[in-house]
C-alpha cells in the first residue's frame, strides 16, 4: 500500500535519515522502531508531507503520493495537543472539516468512537476540563474520525495509562481486521510483539532491520535452549555447553544450554535423555529489546 524509497533527510546540523526504504502492506500493522532521536519522527513527518525529504520518493498504491492522499491519512503526531479553550464537539468538528467531512458525518463518527472507546458522549464538554486520559482519547478520535484507510501513529502509547493503552491496542487490531493499514512508531520495543505484523528498526538515521515480526525473531534466535530436567547435566565437548544451571527444587533443575555450531538439537536431545529425564524443552527466543541491542552492537562492530 505504502512504499517509501531511498529517503534521505538532513537538518541544519545533523542527518536524520540516510537512504531508508520501507514497504508497508495493506491491512497490516507496521511498527517503526528505534531509540529516541533515531529518525522515526522525521520519517513519519515526511510521509505526511509535514516536512520534505532531501532525496527519495514515496508511493501510495504504486502512485506517487499527492497532497490529497496525505489529507486522507489519519495521523497522530508525537507532539500532540488540543485547543484548551474549545468544546470537544467543536474540536472534533473542526478536525473533521479539515479532513473534508460533513458536519453530520462528523457527529455520527464521533458518536461511534465514543462508544468504541467506552466513554460517554463528551460532545459538549470543555477540553480544559478533561483529564489526561480523556484528552488522549479525544486526540485518538480526532485522528480516526474520517475513517482513514491509512493510520499513522507516532509514539501512540506514550502518555496513555495501561488500561487506555490496551483499549487503543484492541481498537487498532479491530481496525486491522476491517482492512485498515496502520503504521506506528515507538521506542518502547517490548510493546510491539503482540501488535506488529511487520517492523523496521531505525538507529542513527539508518535502517538496521526490516521484516516480518515472527521471521525476525526466528532469525535472531540463538542456538540456546532452556531445559527442565531431574539430574545435573555436564557440558559435552562435542555437542553443547552449559551456560547456567539452577536447582529449582528437589529433582528439578533448569539449565540454559548452548548448542555448538553445526550440531543438531536432536543429537543434543538424545544425548542428554540417555540418563536424564527431560521435563520441558524450549528454544530461547529473544525479545525485541535483545534483538535491537544485538543489532546495534553488530552495527558498531561492523
Amino acid at each position: 500500500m505504502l512504499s517509501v524509497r531511498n529517503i534521505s533527510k538532513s537538518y541544519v546540523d545533523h542527518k536524520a535519515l540516510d537512504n531508508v526504504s520501507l514497504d508497508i502492506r495493506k491491512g497490516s500493522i507496521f511498527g517503526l522502531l528505534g531509540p529516541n532521536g533515531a529518525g522515526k519522527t522525521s520519517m513519519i513527518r515526511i510521509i505526511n508531507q509535514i516536512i520534505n525529504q532531501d532525496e527519495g520518493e514515496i508511493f501510495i498504491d504504486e502512485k506517487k503520493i499527492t497532497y490529497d492522499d496525505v489529507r486522507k491519512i489519519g495521523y497522530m503526531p508525537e507532539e500532540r495537543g488540543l485547543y484548551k479553550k474549545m468544546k470537544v464537539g467543536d474540536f472534533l468538528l473542526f478536525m473533521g472539516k479539515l479532513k473534508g467531512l460533513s458536519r453530520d458525518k462528523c457527529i455520527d463518527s464521533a458518536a461511534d468512537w465514543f462508544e468504541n472507546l467506552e466513554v460517554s458522549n463528551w460532545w459538549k464538554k470543555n477540553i480544559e476540563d478533561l483529564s489526561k486520559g480523556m484528552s488522549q482519547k479525544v486526540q485518538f478520535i480526532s485522528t480516526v474520525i474520517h475513517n482513514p484507510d491509512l493510520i499513522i501513529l507516532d509514539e501512540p502509547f506514550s502518555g496513555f495509562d495501561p488500561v487506555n493503552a490496551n483499549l487503543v491496542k484492541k481498537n487498532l487490531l479491530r481496525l486491522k481486521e476491517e482492512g485498515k493499514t496502520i503504521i506506528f512508531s515507538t521506542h518502547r520495543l517490548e510493546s510491539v510483539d503482540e501488535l506488529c505484523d511487520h517492523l523496521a528498526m531505525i538507529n542513527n538515521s539508518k535502517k538496521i532491520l526490516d521484516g516480518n515480526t515472527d521471521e525476525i525473531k526466528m532469525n535472531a534466535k540463538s542456538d540456546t535452549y532452556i531445559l527442565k530436567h531431574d539430574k545435573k547435566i555436564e557440558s559435552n565437548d562435542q555437542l553443547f555447553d552449559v551456560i547456567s544451571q539452577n536447582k529449582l527444587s528437589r529433582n528439578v533443575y533448569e539449565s540454559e544450554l548452548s548448542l555448538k555450531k553445526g550440531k543438531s538439537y536432536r543429537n543434543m536431545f538424545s544425548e542428554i535423555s540417555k540418563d536424564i529425564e527431560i521435563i520441558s524443552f524450549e528454544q530461547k527466543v529473544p525479545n525485541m529489546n535483545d534483538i535491537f541491542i544485538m543489532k546495534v552492537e553488530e552495527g558498531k562492530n561492523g
Partner: protein
Amino acid sequence: MDKIWIILEREYLQRVKKKSFILSTILTPLIFPIFIAITVFVLSTEESEERVIALLDSNNFIEDSTKFQNNIFLKSDGKISDIQNLIDDGIIYGALEIPKLDIYNPDELRFYSKNVPGGDLISGIESLIENKIRELKIQDLKLNEESLEKLRTRISMETYSVDSDLSSGTDKVGVKQSNSDVAFGLGYFNGFLIYMFVFIYGSFILQSVLDEKTSKVVEVIISSIKPTQLMMGKVLGVGAVAFTQIFIWIILVTSISTFTSMYFGINSYETTQIVQSEEEINNSKEVVKGIYEMFGTIDIKKTVFIFLIYFLGGFFLYGAFFAAIGSAVDNLQDASQFTLPISLPIIASLMFMGIVLNNPEGNASIFLSMFPLTSPILMMARLAFGVPDWHLVISILILIISVIFALWFAGRIYRVGILTSGSKITYKLLWKWFIMKNY
C-alpha cells in the same frame, strides 16, 4: 482555500465569542465620553479650601481681600522674611511681592510659595496685573477707552480647498470649506487608531500562533493543511475579528455622537466648558461649529474606505511578522527580543505624526506616507488635509506588494519555526530557515 476558511472560521468564532472581546468592543467607545464626563465632573465640583496669599503691593494694583480662583489676597505690611517663614510653616499659601515699579518697564515681581505653583495661577495673576497696568497706561497716555476698543480687530479666515471632484459641472472646480484644526485632529485620530489596532491585534496573532505551538496542536492540524495556509487562515481570522471590532465601533461612535448632539446640541459645550473669558467661548463655539460643518463637508465615505485599506494593509504587514515571531519562539519572553525591532517602525510612525500633521505636503511626509512600514499610520494622518489621488495609489500599491512579500517571508519562517522547539533562536537561524529549500 476552503481549508483556510475552516481555520479562519474557528479563529474568528473563538475570539468573537469571548467575553473579553464583547466587553472591550462595547465599552471602549464609551471610555472616552465617560472619561471626559468624569473630568468635567471633577473640575466642576472642585471646592478646595480658600488659600491665603499675602499681598505686598507697593502700587496698590490689587485691592485687599480680592478673591482670585480659590485664593484670597490679603494685604500685608510685614517683612518678606517673616512672611517666608509663614509660608514655610504652611500657615499661608504664598506671597505676591510687587515692588514700586515703572509701568512702562515692570520687573522684579515675585511670587513665593512652598510648592511650585500651577501655571493657571501664575498666568492668572500675571494677566490680572497686566490689565491693571493697561488701565494705568490708558490714563497716563490720556487715551480714550472707546477708541481703543474700536482699534481692536478680530478676523476669522475661512479656508477652502479646491477640488474638481466637487463640482457638478465639468469645467468648474468646486470648493469646500476646510478646517486645519479638524484635519489635524482627524489625522491624529485615524493614525492613532491604526497604531493601536496593529499593536493589539498583532500581539493577538503572536499569542495565537504561540498557543498552538506550545499546546502542540499545530502538528495535528498541519497534517491536513499546509503551514502557510494555516498561517494565512490565522492572520485572516484575527484580521476579521479586528475588522468586526472597528466596524462595531464606527457604528457605536456614530450613533453615540448623533444621540449626544441631538440631545445636548451645541449648548452642551457651553455648560461643560470651564468658563474663562467671553473671547474663548466664542472661539470654542467656532471650533465646535467648525467641527460640525467639517464633518458635514468631509468625504466620509472615502475616508472610511481608505482607512479600511490602510487598516487591513498595516494589520497584514505587521501581522505577518508577528506570526513569524510567534512560530519561531517557544515562549513570550523569548518573543520580546524579536517584537522590539518590529515595533520600532510602528512607534516611530507615531512620533513622526507631528511632522506629518504640521507639514502634510513636505517631502518627509510624502516619503513617510509611501514607505510601507509607516504608511498605514502616516498616510491616514495626511489624508484629512487632502492627498493627491496618485499619491494614494502609489502608497497603496507599495503597501500591497509589501504585504504579499511579508506574508511570503513570514510563511517561510513559519513552516520551519512551528515544528521547531527548544533551539535558541537567533537572526542567523531565522535566515537559515528562510533560505532552506526543503522543509
